[in-house]
């Protein structure tokens, strides 16, 4: 789609408006709307009140969809807690197609490898617009090839919660996979054959959608035996299906510490920087991801906390079994969990009093008093970074969409110390560029980029640079490190793009931080 564009504060050309999505505000700095002058109004919602005693249990999916009042052009939502095993979204999309409903806006919390059906649903006209945090596989290729008429909108987790609460995303029907649901509609993610841990993203949909359908493969008599993620009063219908998906891919095994020596070196550098920052003291709060070097950082932190008798305040975010073990050992006072990354978490969610299930707004809505804004340290991964410390977690070296915004920009902005861990070379291609393809997290919120070949500290953080140098850490200027890497790899040819915009990246505050273009 050819669109009228404007340049935002980090020099990125973004559209002024998109037909079907409305006017767009350009990004104007990570904290421009957080200086006290911006007025934010969550939307007051109206909802039809069903007659008392209305039957909640629908006989099948088709009946539930019909009773929800879903029509052409409306917005439907899903959550992605069922990870790569999710069969709920594909099953519902099929059922909707059989009913002949067209032109929907799809607004899931994210799209995973289990959701390939979406690409064909777009081609068949069932889905006309997509709001999501991430895309992968064929969906990414489809969008990058400009097969959608209306550009996709990428949100951060906090930004999605904000957008739903303010009505920018107005969900007509939310379909929520419920690993266990009781006959009154109370549901939880922490028990059942499809247990996935917490349901933090789904809670926002449940509270704000016009109609909520719980889809479960484990219907039990009320009340639920364990804690309730989403209460009955938010649930309009319940549908019992055979299976929410592939249990082995929903409940993936515990995330393991990498044995890759490069990842371990990165993790060691990142840990050394955290220690040098002086933040690793009693009461510190912490977020790490589950992949690559991130979890290995947690290992170093855990060892240090044990040896030094440091007790952390809280851990947040996507929670791994590793973090749950740290809670169990008393190394954190609490875990705030919006999304469980592996099966090892579910027992902790259900059983530990200080393992707190939080919703996405509580987690990261920048206009709420969200938890990420109290975060001390976050360790994040990236696909690419650039010399201005901007981070891309969406597009690969080939320019194709293949990632997720997630809580990346939310936590980078909210934390006192944001560290990006990235191998300096991935599949022979250097990871530090002059400009990343797509900015998801602006450089002004990134404090350090840590590679196996050295630590680059944002010039805005002179204080941190001094602490790191005083600690004897391998601090390098980012342009120097880039040159050092390119000496080994050469400089890759740039990917060729058309001017056509196929997607936009919304920053957590609702402004547009970058555009995604059609790959030539």
């Amino acid at each position, binding site marked *: 789609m050819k669109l009228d564009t404007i340049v935002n504060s980090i020099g990125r050309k973004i559209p002024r408006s998109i037909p079907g999505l409305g006017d767009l505000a350009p990004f104007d700095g990570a904290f421009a709307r957080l200086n006290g002058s911006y007025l934010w109004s969550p939307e007051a919602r109206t909802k039809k009140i069903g007659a008392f005693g209305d039957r909640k249990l629908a006989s099948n999916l088709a009946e539930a969809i019909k009773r929800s009042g879903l029509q052409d052009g409306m917005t439907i939502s899903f959550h992605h807690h069922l990870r790569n095993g999710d069969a709920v979204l594909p099953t519902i999309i099929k059922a909707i197609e059989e009913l002949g409903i067209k032109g929907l806006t799809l607004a899931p919390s994210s799209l995973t490898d289990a959701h390939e059906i979406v690409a064909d649903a777009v081609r068949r006209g069932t889905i006309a617009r997509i709001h999501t945090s991430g895309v992968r596989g064929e969906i990414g290729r489809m969008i990058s090839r400009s097969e959608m008429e209306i550009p996709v909108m990428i949100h951060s987790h906090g930004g999605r919660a904000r957008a739903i609460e303010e009505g920018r995303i107005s969900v007509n029907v939310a379909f929520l996979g419920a690993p266990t649901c009781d006959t009154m509609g109370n549901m939880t993610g922490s028990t059942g054959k499809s247990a996935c841990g917490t349901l933090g993203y789904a809670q926002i949909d449940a509270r704000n959608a016009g109609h909520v359908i719980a889809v479960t493969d484990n219907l039990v008599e009320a009340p639920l035996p364990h804690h309730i993620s989403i209460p009955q009063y938010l649930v309009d219908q319940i549908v019992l299906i055979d299976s929410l998906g592939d249990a082995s891919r929903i409940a993936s095994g515990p995330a393991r510490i990498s*044995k890759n*020596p*490069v990842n*371990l*070196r990165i993790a*060691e550098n990142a840990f050394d920087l955290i220690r040098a920052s002086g933040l690793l003291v009693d009461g510190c709060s912490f977020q790490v991801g589950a992949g690559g070097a991130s979890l290995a950082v947690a290992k170093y932190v855990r060892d240090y906390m044990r040896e030094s008798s440091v007790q952390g305040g809280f851990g947040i975010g996507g929670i791994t079994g590793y973090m749950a073990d740290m809670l169990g050992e008393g190394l954190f006072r609490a875990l705030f969990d919006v999304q469980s990354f592996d099966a090892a978490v579910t027992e902790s969610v259900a059983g530990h009093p200080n393992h707190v299930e939080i919703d996405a707004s509580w987690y990261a809505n920048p206009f709420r008093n969200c938890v990420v804004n109290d975060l001390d340290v976050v360790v994040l991964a990236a696909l690419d970074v650039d010399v201005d410390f901007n981070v891309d977690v969406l597009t690969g070296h080939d320019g194709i969409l293949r990632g997720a915004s997630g809580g990346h920009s939310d936590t980078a902005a909210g934390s006192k110390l944001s560290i990006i861990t990235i191998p300096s*070379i991935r599949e022979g291609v250097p990871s530090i560029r002059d400009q990343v393809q797509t900015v998801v997290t602006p450089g002004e919120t990134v404090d350090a980029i840590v590679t*196996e*070949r050295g630590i680059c500290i944002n010039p805005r953080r002179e204080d941190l640079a001094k602490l790191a140098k005083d600690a004897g850490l391998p601090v390098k200027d980012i342009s120097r490190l880039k040159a*050092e890497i390119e*000496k*080994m790899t050469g400089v890759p040819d740039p990917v060729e793009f058309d001017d056509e915009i196929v997607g936009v990246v919304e920053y957590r505050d609702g402004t547009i931080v970058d555009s995604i273009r059609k790959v030539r």
Partner: protein
Amino acid sequence: MTKTARRRPRRSLLYVPGNNPAMVQNCSVYGADGVLLDLEDAVAVTEKDAARHLVSQALVDLPFDGVEKVVRINGRDTRFFEDDLKAIVPAKPDSIRLPKTESPEDIVEADRIISELERGNDIPVGSIEIHAMLETALALINAYSIATSSPRVTALTLGGQDLAADLGIARSREGTELLYARSHVILAAKAAGKEALDTVFTDVNDQEGLEAECRLAVQLGFSGKAAIHPSQIGTIHRAYRPNEKKLIKAIRVVKAAKDAEAKGLGVIAVDGKMVDAPVVAQANRTIELAKLSGMEVSL
């Protein structure tokens, strides 16, 4: 006899297959004091040319950030020996590891070719060192004469696997079968004023076994140990971390030596007791190892 002062400790030397570009590319990041870019056992006969080319290019182009660059070439008894030296010496490694060294003649011949190549490539003659690898019973018998056969030889190193095969014995987790061989290599090396480097511990999943073997290596007097996986480096380095008591004593010895030098005294005394030069040298090494281990040292 030449007493050689090492430029830096060689606690760990990591084997990196010379035909693996991804691993070669990362030589500077594994945390080892040195890397052993291998052209010998890790490389199949059909890949010798490619590995030689890759390693020589890497030596020229890649940043090693102070990590010692050692190339293990193929032995003198193979057809690759001379070609390896011709490809590697112009790329200026810090050292050549010469496997299957059995006699002083092996060293003398390698020395002759290296000297010729140094002269032809404007490299100061004698600057490339040799680690002589002793892997047979005969090599052990000749250990001292091998160590003293050239000033280029800065270290003797034990090839445990091949030696066990030569002796017709199986290696055990405890390594008692190699105790004499280890001790012999150390004695020969020390007598010649060279370093002694220990063989590899082959089970990469057995950190406890590695730790025990490292403790033994330190106790016996090895300056360092070869590693076959980056995960072994941390364990090796921990074995060389001096304890606080030893460090405090070393600091006192070095301070006393400095005081004596400043006052122009020929005799160094600590707590009224005379201390001789080897003790000062050992104290300096303790301090160096402490610094490498991240311990705070204030002199």
